[in-house]
């Protein structure tokens, strides 16, 4: 990996960098669409490429089940298998193992679970997770970590944190001896859902292993308030390594993370919500299932460069076809993928132009309108010197993650 920070925001911790991997350059900060099963919902790899996406995510747990490693090996890796010629990232499979498998037990050796095929007890060790990811062949791979729910308290949290560091060492060792270091890059995972003291220790230990890792992921965040902890991580992580915040996908959250110094994020939300008829726009999400769109011949967003809006696909025809025709989901998926990329692209432009704080103000004002700003966003941005309410003093502040959008299903609305 070649990683170079090319611009920094003078107010916030935001930065623009260039990350060169084996399948080309990806400019950061960026959002990564999730192709869980080696496909972005209904789209072809050529379509994704045409949207200006240069980095997507595959899930190791899923690919290991299907098509399986034999198939991927014979295909020559996941890139060739899915016809994707740009950059690819895989997770370790550990998170899904814990959340999707009922019988997972963590031991020092690894994660013990019931094989979904045979029911036999099966062990996923850190070494094996890395070697599975080597077979998949993604440009960025993740360490196996000992994931605990953010609701967990007590000694188990500390145990998991310390084990994750030990597992990182085993992952680094496995990666170093594989001969794949030139084409694949290992990221460490900092546990975000910890108390500040533990998180600090975790960061110290992980930063000490900097030479063995190409970048850092921040994991274990789910609720809105916890995302504030990203600041502590980003502040402490070395400048010369990319920082990846796992599972972040709402536009407002993305921009706050960027302001805190995050370079990459992923989430299934933009592609999943598309299938239920929700198009994301700079003026907030739009539920195309609502009957108010029946006779609306305008596109989702006049100024959007996506194939759907450029072709002037109307809200009316999307309303007529969504949930009945897969093609409608494809059209909205393309739009949402482009929307996410635009949000991040505009952030990069603003950072370079030195206007990132203004961009945050404009984005939030247009996106939320009078709906109110999420409290966590306001607080997190204050911590890096941007006061969203400064230019908009009458704006409401909504506790927690914020506004409720028109995600409603009721077609009568």
């Amino acid at each position, binding site marked *: 990996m070649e990683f170079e920070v090319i611009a920094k925001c003078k107010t916030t911790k935001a930065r*623009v960098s*260039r990350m060169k991997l084996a399948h080309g350059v990806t*400019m950061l900060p960026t959002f990564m669409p999730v192709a869980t099963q080696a496909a972005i919902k209904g789209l072809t790899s*050529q379509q994704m490429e045409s949207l200006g996406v240069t980095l997507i995510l595959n899930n190791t747990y899923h690919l290991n089940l299907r098509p399986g490693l034999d198939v991927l090996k014979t295909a020559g890796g996941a890139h060739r298998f899915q016809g994707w010629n740009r950059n690819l990232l895989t997770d370790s499979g550990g998170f899904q193992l814990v959340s999707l498998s009922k019988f997972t037990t963590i031991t020092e050796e690894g994660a013990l679970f019931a094989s979904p095929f045979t029911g036999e007890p099966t062990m996923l060790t850190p070494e094996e997770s890395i070697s599975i990811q080597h077979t998949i062949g993604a440009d960025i791979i993740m360490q196996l970590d000992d994931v605990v729910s953010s609701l967990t308290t007590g000694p188990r949290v500390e145990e998991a944190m310390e084990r994750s560091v030990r597992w990182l060492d085993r992952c680094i060792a496995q990666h170093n001896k594989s001969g794949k270091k030139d084409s694949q890059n290992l990221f460490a995972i900092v546990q975000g859902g910890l108390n500040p003291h533990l998180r600090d220790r975790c960061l110290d230990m992980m930063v000490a292993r900097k030479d063995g890792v190409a970048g850092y992921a921040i994991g274990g965040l789910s609720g809105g308030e916890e995302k504030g902890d990203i600041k502590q991580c980003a502040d402490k992580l070395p400048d010369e390594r990319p920082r990846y915040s796992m599972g972040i996908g709402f536009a407002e959250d993305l921009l706050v993370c960027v302001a805190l110094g995050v370079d990459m994020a992923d989430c299934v939300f933009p592609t999943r919500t598309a299938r239920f008829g929700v198009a994301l726009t700079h003026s907030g999400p739009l539920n195309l299932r609502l009957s108010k769109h029946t006779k609306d011949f305008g596109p989702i967003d006049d100024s959007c460069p996506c*194939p759907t809006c450029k*072709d002037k696909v109307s809200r009316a025809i999307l309303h*007529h076809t969504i949930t009945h025709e897969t093609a409608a989901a494809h059209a909205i998926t393309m739009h949402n993928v482009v929307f996410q990329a635009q949000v991040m692209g505009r952030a990069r432009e603003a950072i370079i132009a030195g206007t990132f704080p203004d961009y945050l103000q404009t984005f939030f004002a247009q996106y939320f309108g009078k709906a109110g700003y999420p409290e966590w966003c306001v607080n997190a941005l204050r911590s890096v010197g941007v006061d969203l309410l400064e230019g908009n003093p009458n704006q409401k502040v909504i506790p927690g993650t914020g506004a409720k959008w028109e995600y409603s299903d009721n077609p009568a609305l």
Partner: protein
Amino acid sequence: MAMTASTSSVSFSLSNWGPVSTTRSKIFGPRLGSLILHRHPQESDLDLSLPSTSREIRLETPTFLTSTSRGVVPHLSRDNVKRCESIRWVNVPFESFMESNPPVPTIHPGPDPLHKFLGFNQSQQIISMSARNPCDGRQLPPNGKDTVSVWTLQGVRKLTPSDWQKYATKCQPDVVFALSDTPFTDPPYSQKRMTKSIERSAQWLARLLSSPTIPLPSVILHLAGLSSSPARRAFSNSLLEPLYGPELEAVAHMGIKNLDEGVVGYSVDLVPIRMTIEAEGRKIASTNNTATPSALTPMFNQTRHLAVPLHTAQIIPLVHSSLSSLPPFKLRLINGIESPHEVLRYISKVGIDVFDAGWAQKCASIGVALDFEFPVITRKDVGEVGRLQIGCNLYDEAYQMDFRALSSSFLCQCPTCVPVSTPEGEEIKHGVDSEEYTRTTAIPTHPSTAVLSEVKGYTRAYIHHLLHTHEMSAHTLLTMHNLETLDRFFRGIRGLLTQLENSQKNEVASSLWDDEVSRFTLTYDELASFEVLETARGMWKDVDIKRGKGRLSKEKNEGEND
């Protein structure tokens, strides 16, 4: 036969070879033709400067039309439709738009509302509009004296001939199918019902042609009469009767003397005919208390999950009785085809020019990649390995490790088999991602350039994987491939006919055609092919139940939580 006073007109002409003479065998045999759509520039047309060829679409026949559902080609977003050169004629069943009143396309602002609303390119695609999905055989309440029952998601709607004229003129498709009084109640139908059916169908055609306030698109007429040869003959004859008095006045603007002169071509919907033949068979069997006589043609499953034989042998003479009195040089179209074998039969025995592609698209929806060629050239070896099927059920575990291209007989050029990457630099730019920023000074020759040049087609193994993980992309890739395979099949048919036409000896030519058809039939086992489709449909259902609908609603709930 071009119709005047319309913003577009369709004309059809036959090539020299074929049924120019009057003998019966020549009227009904393979033929080559061309269908030309000419868009007349309007005063409001901003593109008056365009060369005239860009206002013309030319389709060589025999060819096919692509089916749509709710106005879209299933599984293809518009950018993918543009990637498919095989999509040149789309048919739009209008009934789904009758869920709102007035139907939404009829209030679309600006010229060419239907093209614009559905996003088809006027210089690339011909759009036809039919009231109903011609392949839908579901039961419906009876049609009325002045209404056709149509199917919408919100239940049955009634469509009147005058509304149909209004919708056709407002939507401005290139072709409109006249309303037909085809019953979908409970076949078989009485003679009285058939008499009513042909009378109404003729009246409704007259209504469609009469004094529209806006020019009417070119009209294709469904040949009424179902399984009754006398009714079919009577219907055709009624079209040829000279019009008098007010009836003549009503169509005076068209300069026509009978109803037939008002239409550019004829269509036959196979589904209701098959259902009627089937019902008649059951009736005879029950009165004679014997088993149903075995069908001469294969069994297949319709989308409505009814097993109905193709009944091709019975239907061909019925189509003959419709066509024999009508001018032989008009366009002939068939809806409800189920296999390439059936296409060849209708070309050989009737001389059909246009076939619907619904079956090939349905194959894509159930995981079948079509794989056949005509004439059979590369797979002449099959005698030794056993007969082939017309497609692969990619659900089958046999494809798990099969990294071959979808087509075994030729290098398919479809966007699935030969994916075309966006030229570098032409992807959508989002900010600070132009070459100015992405260019790096270090190590100019990185392995990535080598990787980038290795764009290969999607494999059977990949689509097998997508099918089993219930990924929609499987059906997108299969639709693009199946339509191209079908296009190639028709190119092969036209190529052979052109070759034979040039040979100038009709007897030799006709036997060479028959030889190639039987070679195709011997190479590709039709019955076994239907079994492949049947198995695929079963596996599609299993995966859909396991990972489809149920999973979707689960995700929906999750989605609401986040």
